[in-house]
């Protein structure tokens, strides 16, 4: 039945900007401070105070606009969005309405079948965050004003996504771009990235949009996909039953896995937007835009393509490595420090980062930048593996040491005497000894039990504390066992 229907989704994404101070006063934006500690008369909305724009917000918004192919408006204005709520101290939110700073942009998303799709961005505007109302306490509702005035950008997409998967891809791409630009930490759980969706469905072939609903409160990437799927199905079911969809706002309840209607259009707010007379026009000239242009880093889509061509990495590796800018830069820094640079060592570096480092940062929930293993040391470890100084197995032990103490691999190798034993005559002496001591096993091997090679390798490793070069051990073992034939 769903095949008859087409989904239409547009997203409104809010990103908290990583400025040190708030949008219109000099209070810090630190997350997790004591309630109502990052406040001043201005963000408390005391009588008589005035907002003064933090210029860095404009820088960040222009940066995002340029990264998403937007037109940057030379003159944009702030507007007041008026509504009453206890966590909104002024009774209005400073936002932009007419003349937003960025408009008419787009980004490219990649679909399942490896094709790409362009999603239009209607506008990006600057605004201030509201405070937090805390309802789930026994006493009463409490208000924390710390978040009041924290700068946000709102990125409004065109209604061009046709499935929850596409919406998910779009949201991931937005997150990737803002984190690459360093303007937002992209953390949905902490609310520094928030997403509302406008959803409608229509029969395939129809030209007009049907009634849409707005879904809010989807506070994780997983919730976005699930909430959208829920809402799409709900709308289709209504149409199939011959009923209609009401224009309303729904709140996603992640515990019950349902979207609950919050308010209908009839009692929707009239925000009475009008230009904020306390703030002057934001005038952005070509010079300003060009200065920002210079600071745009290589964006994820471009980096991904370059990793494939420049380092001969598989597409999968490139995707994983470029998901986060810090990881991509860690990889590149590792590569830069390799003594032996070739597709094999690049792949080796990729494997180490994807399997070992990403596992650790996921487990420890830390940034790759905070690990004690520096790229220069990882490069040294990889060099040691590729020039045969240590075995891959030993390398893992060394890596564990590096993680704990941040020591250089050479220091650990020397300290623990972990250098791989590659001296053929030395290894041959040990093998001869083992063969002499186990004549019956030698016989069995020679009778055809070829898997007994493992026994001999194990014995060699036992005697050498795992340091013997396994390649050479194998070579000599086979030569000796087979020669006697």
């Amino acid at each position, binding site marked *: 039945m769903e095949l008859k229907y087409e989904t239409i989704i547009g997203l409104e994404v809010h990103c908290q900007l990583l400025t040190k101070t708030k949008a219109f006063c000099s209070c810090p934006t630190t997350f997790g401070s004591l309630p109502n500690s990052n406040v001043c008369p201005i963000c408390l909305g005391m009588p008589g105070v005035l907002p003064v724009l933090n210029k860095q917000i404009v820088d960040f918004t222009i940066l995002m606009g340029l990264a998403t192919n937007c037109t940057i408006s030379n003159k944009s204005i702030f507007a007041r969005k008026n509504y009453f709520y206890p966590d909104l101290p002024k009774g209005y939110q400073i936002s932009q309405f007419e003349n937003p700073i960025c408009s008419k942009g787009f980004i490219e998303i990649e679909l399942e079948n490896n094709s790409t799709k362009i999603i239009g961005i209607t506008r990006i505007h600057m605004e201030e965050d509201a405070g937090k109302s805390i309802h789930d306490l026994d006493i009463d509702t409490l208000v924390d004003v710390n978040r009041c005035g924290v700068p946000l950008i709102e990125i409004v997409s065109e209604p061009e996504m046709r499935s929850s998967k596409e919406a998910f891809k779009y949201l991931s791409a937005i997150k990737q771009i803002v984190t690459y630009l360093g303007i937002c930490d992209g953390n949905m759980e902490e609310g520094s990235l928030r997403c509302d969706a406008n959803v409608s469905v229509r029969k395939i072939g129809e030209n007009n949009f049907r009634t849409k609903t707005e879904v809010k409160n989807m506070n994780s990437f997983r919730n976005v996909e699930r909430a959208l799927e829920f809402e799409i199905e709900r709308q289709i079911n209504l149409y199939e039953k011959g009923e209609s969809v009401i224009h309303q706002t729904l709140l996603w309840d992640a515990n019950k896995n349902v979207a609950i209607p919050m308010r209908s259009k009839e009692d929707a707010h009239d925000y*009475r937007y009008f230009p904020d007379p306390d703030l002057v026009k934001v005038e952005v000239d070509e010079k300003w835009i060009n200065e920002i242009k210079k600071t745009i880093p290589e964006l994820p889509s471009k980096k991904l393509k370059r990793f494939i061509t420049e380092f001969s990495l598989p597409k999968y590796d490139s995707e994983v490595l470029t998901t986060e800018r810090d990881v991509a830069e860690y990889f590149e820094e590792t590569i830069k420090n390799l003594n032996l640079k070739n597709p094999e060592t690049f792949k080796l570096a990729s494997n180490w980062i994807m399997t070992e480092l990403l596992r650790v940062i996921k487990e420890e929930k830390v940034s790759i930048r905070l690990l004690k293993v520096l790229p220069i040391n990882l490069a040294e470890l990889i060099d040691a593996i590729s020039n045969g100084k240590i075995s891959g197995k030993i390398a893992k032990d060394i890596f564990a040491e590096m993680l704990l103490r941040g020591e250089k691999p050479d220091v650990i190798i020397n300290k623990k005497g972990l250098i791989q034993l590659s001296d053929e005559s030395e290894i041959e002496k040990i093998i001869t000894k083992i063969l002499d001591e186990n004549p019956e096993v030698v016989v069995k091997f020679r009778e055809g039990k070829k898997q007994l090679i493992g026994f001999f390798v194990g014995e060699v490793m036992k005697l050498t504390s795992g340091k013997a070069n396994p390649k050479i051990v194998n070579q000599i073992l086979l030569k000796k066992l087979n020669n006697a034939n």
Partner: protein
Amino acid sequence: MHSVSSYSYDDFLNQTPDNNNSVLNIVEKYLKNIELRKNINAFTEVYNEESIANAKKTDQELKSNNKKKLSGFVIAVKDIISIEGKKLTCASKILKDFTSLYDATVIKKLKDADAIIIGKTNCDEFAMGSSGENSSIGKTLNPVNEAKVPGGSSSGSAAAVAANFSMGSLGTDTGGSIRQPAGFCGIVGLKPTYGRVSRYGLVAFASSFDQIGPFANNSRDAARILEVIAGHDPLDSTSANIPVPNYLEKMNGDLKNLKIGLPKEYFDDSLNPEIKKSIELKIEFLKSKGVKFVEVSLPHTEYTIPAYYILTTAEASSNLARYDGARYGHRSKNSNTMEEMFVNSRSEGFGNEVKRRIMLGTYVLSSGYYDAYYKKAQKVRRLIQKDFLDVFKNVDCLLTPTSPTTAFNLGEKTKNPLEMYLSDIYTVSVNLAGLPAISIPSGKDKNNLPIGIQLIGKHFDEQTLLKIADVCENNLN
């Protein structure tokens, strides 16, 4: 020393400080005057002990030759301007017990200049009104004739200067709230160019109109106060980064080569003939000083009042949203839900005129009406600004009446808001255009009530207004 005649800062400076003329003595006399005419109801709060302490301190400073720009200048401040640690009521029940956390920029500057702030003055609630009758602590009387209104909204600030409660005062002017009461009380009131004086710490009524300005007995004192409070403020994005001149230096009596425009729309039949007569005399006098006069036209004058009331109420409806009972100010005790708290706190806390303007402003901004009202009024505002800019290509300033009548009776217009609004007909266009203007005394009518005339200047040219005002005053003496 000054129980009858008005005392100026020049008088203070020309005396050698001794026990009789110490700052302490002056402050004590002002405090006594306030006590003697308590019925004027000019103050929301008088800082008795603090003023005396500051006066003693100033006397010490002066003895050690440590004179600042306003040392010993006793000033009253409209209770809509924030002073740290002091009540800030805006003459409203909703802020009856509210204490401010910080100093407004103008207050900081006055304190730095060693002025003595003697108290906070009564006004129309949130500066909304033209008679001083919309105050939660009761109306202010006109010291010249106690049966009359002092004008508004800076009623107490005008009355304080007129009644010799202080040497000068700060008022605020959104549509004439300095100039009209100055006219009604027979003193000088200056509304600076929009952006000349920082609004940081001024409780907003209509943000794109409000300006803080001085009241004084004469234009030299008004100039002194302006010079201290004016200038760019990083805390106010709309304050202009334009140097503040030394006004007194240029008040040299030379009016030759000045050309003043007389806008014909301001001299129609609705103007009281006595006021008209007074203006004609003033014109003759200024001509004798070498000033040339020319009739000019401001064609969009008739749209001034509607545009003003649409735009100011729109801004007010948003500016006054913060008084919701949630965080500070009056909170209704009879509320069970959040919405009830908002509605009841505001219904109980605001007076009728404030409610009227919030409703009007909410209406003109609501969806479906925005274009017809707010947007159109913005266009009219631009046309009115252009009228003035065109006229100022040919003249240095304009001369008009301050108000269509002299001070009216208490209670005379309280039943009819529209008639009350029309008492600002000559003053509001100045705020729409953001221009500076001054009201100066120009004799009295047959009932012995002061007549005010208004001079309107080019943007940031308060200088010319002060210079002309100064010459006119010398003629009076």
